[in-house]
């Protein structure tokens, strides 16, 4: 397939359309705005809906409403807008309505640096909304991966009935690369109820722990609420129901973590030093890692594709196997390194942080790698 020169944000739009997105609601914000612009241009031509809402809270609410009718729905934003979306991301997690939320990260806190990259929203993607809740977050490091992972985001959200965050960053969003705009092989649609409307309980699940929510307006009348609810969908204060629901919606993801989590590892088996990165820092990390190997240095790389759920199992196993030193380049003050310290001892983690709006350069990383292998 011939490659085309595409911007990261555009690749996201192309993939979403190929995945069957039929509803987009959003609000302009740098550096994600091109996603809304392209959606506005392309969706109506496909007979689909684009709406520019009054803010990000409303955008998030609108995509949940649309998804409840069965429409594959999506929004895109950046840090400040992502903050506003948290309320209804929690609602989607609680009510198990599939949606895709793209966050093209910029520097924070607050309005921060609108045009510069950052990875400061990693923890917000996981814990931004209140309460114990499930979420899946994926992070591309290239335009092609943005295309690939946008499909994956829709598939995972439909399969697990959960909000999925595509955690891009300004570099990945604004960069142009030659990519293949292929047709996705596998498109997953949410399960349909097997019971008749009379017997239907919206939040009854089988061993998968995943409910089959019927689209609104198709004869299955039920109630959806952000309050703790039982299998019928109606509110309950029963301790058993509270515990059962909160555990199930979280276990729904934990139980399938091995299927959900994807990563790329390069030369890690005999590594003395393992670089761990996601998003745009992967690009420098890969270059440094390959150069080091050519010199005979035992340096490996793990590129996280799935940021949440976090690949603790993979990383703790890798540490036990190699006892390697982990070098963590990231565009934040250590959100990734801190999380890693749950599975790798703190003293075995070297942090390479950058929060001045610039990328971590290969030279910056190379110096740390050489120090570590010495």
């Amino acid at each position: 397939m011939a490659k085309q020169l595409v911007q990261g944000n555009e690749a996201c739009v192309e993939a979403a359309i190929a995945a069957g997105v039929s509803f987009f609601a959003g609000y302009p914000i740098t550096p994600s705005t091109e996603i809304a612009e392209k959606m506005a241009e392309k969706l109506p031509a496909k007979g689909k809906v684009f709406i520019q809402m009054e803010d990000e809270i409303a955008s998030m609410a609108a995509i949940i409403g649309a998804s409840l009718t069965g429409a594959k729905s999506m929004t895109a934003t950046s840090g400040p807008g992502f903050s506003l979306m948290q309320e209804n991301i929690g609602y989607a997690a609680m009510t198990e309505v599939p949606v895709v939320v793209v966050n093209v990260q910029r520097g924070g806190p607050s309005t921060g640096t609108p045009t510069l990259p950052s990875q400061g929203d990693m923890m917000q993607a996981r814990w931004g909304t209140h309460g114990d809740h499930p979420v899946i977050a994926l992070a591309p490091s290239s335009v092609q991966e943005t295309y690939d992972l946008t499909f994956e985001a829709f598939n995972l959200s439909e399969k697990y009935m959960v909000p999925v965050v595509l955690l891009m960053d300004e570099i990945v969003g604004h960069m142009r690369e030659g990519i293949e705009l292929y047709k996705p092989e596998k498109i997953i649609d949410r399960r349909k109820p097997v019971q008749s409307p009379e017997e239907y309980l919206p939040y009854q699940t089988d061993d998968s722990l995943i409910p089959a929510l019927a689209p609104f307006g198709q004869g299955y009348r039920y109630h959806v609420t952000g309050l703790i609810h039982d299998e019928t969908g109606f509110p309950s204060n029963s301790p058993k129901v509270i515990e059962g629901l909160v555990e199930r919606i979280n276990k729904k993801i934990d139980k399938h973590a091995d299927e959900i989590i994807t990563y790329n590892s390069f030369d890690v088996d005999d590594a003395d030093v393992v670089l761990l990165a996601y998003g745009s820092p992967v690009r420098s990390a890969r270059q440094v890692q390959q150069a080091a190997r050519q010199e005979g240095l035992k340096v490996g790389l793990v590129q996280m594709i799935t940021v949440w759920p976090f690949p603790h199992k993979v990383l703790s196993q890798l540490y036990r196997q190699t006892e390697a030193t982990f070098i963590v380049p990231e565009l934040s003050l250590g959100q990734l390194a801190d999380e890693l310290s749950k599975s790798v001892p703190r003293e075995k983690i070297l942090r390479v942080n950058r929060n001045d709006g610039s990328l971590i350069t290969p030279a910056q990383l190379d110096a740390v790698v050489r120090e570590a292998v010495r």
Partner: protein
Amino acid sequence: MNYKNYLRWNKLPHIWCPGCGHGIVLGAFLRAVAQRELNKDDVAVVSGIGCSSRAAGYVDFNTLHTAHGRAIPFATGIKLSRPDMKVIVLTGDGDATAIGGNHFIHAARRNLDLTVIVFNNNIYGMTSGQFSPMTPHINFATTAPHGNFDYPFDLVELAKGAGATYVARGAAAYPRQLEKAIGQGLDHEGFSVIEAMSQCPTYYGRKNKMGTAEQMLKWQKENATVSSNPGEKIPLGVFVQVERPEYTKLTGQFIDSVSGGK
């Protein structure tokens, strides 16, 4: 169909206090629905948070009890994806005009075909009696122990100014008129707002020494009027009923023109 068949009887009695006007408003709404013989499967009822928003749980439609103030944007997503469905928002004065005020004016501006019934009890009842943007000036509330010095919204004027194409006010004390006002709102194609005055004897009434539910209803009856010459009284009736292209229709036409009807 009998309007009571639209209730989820296994969820009743409801949580509202004795004498609360919300049940009266809900009844008027359901009678308006029954007169139009709306098919339960074709209706979505969306609510926010607060006493009024609990109404969604009691009615046998596709029901969505959302986050505080957000009923309208959730309803927007439903309506745009399923323009054939009747989408109704049940909300309160605080839900619709404070935390949800921005969504309210923008849906009005778009003239999206939603029927929005604002249960106005002039107070936050669910959190036990704080003042709302529709609590009258110098009335009392738990967060206005010395009297509320904020000035309230006039919802009719707010809706009108924002571009709503159907705006009416009714009251629990005039249930027949309220039912008609809601019914005309359901018939209207476009953003329809019905303010429904409702008594809260537990908080608003008690804080403002308005007496029992009976006395509050009597106050409503005496201080609101369906007359076209209301004088100093609160006017009830239909204040705006105009035709303007409806949003899902516009979206549909736009999609057809851009996509060539694909």
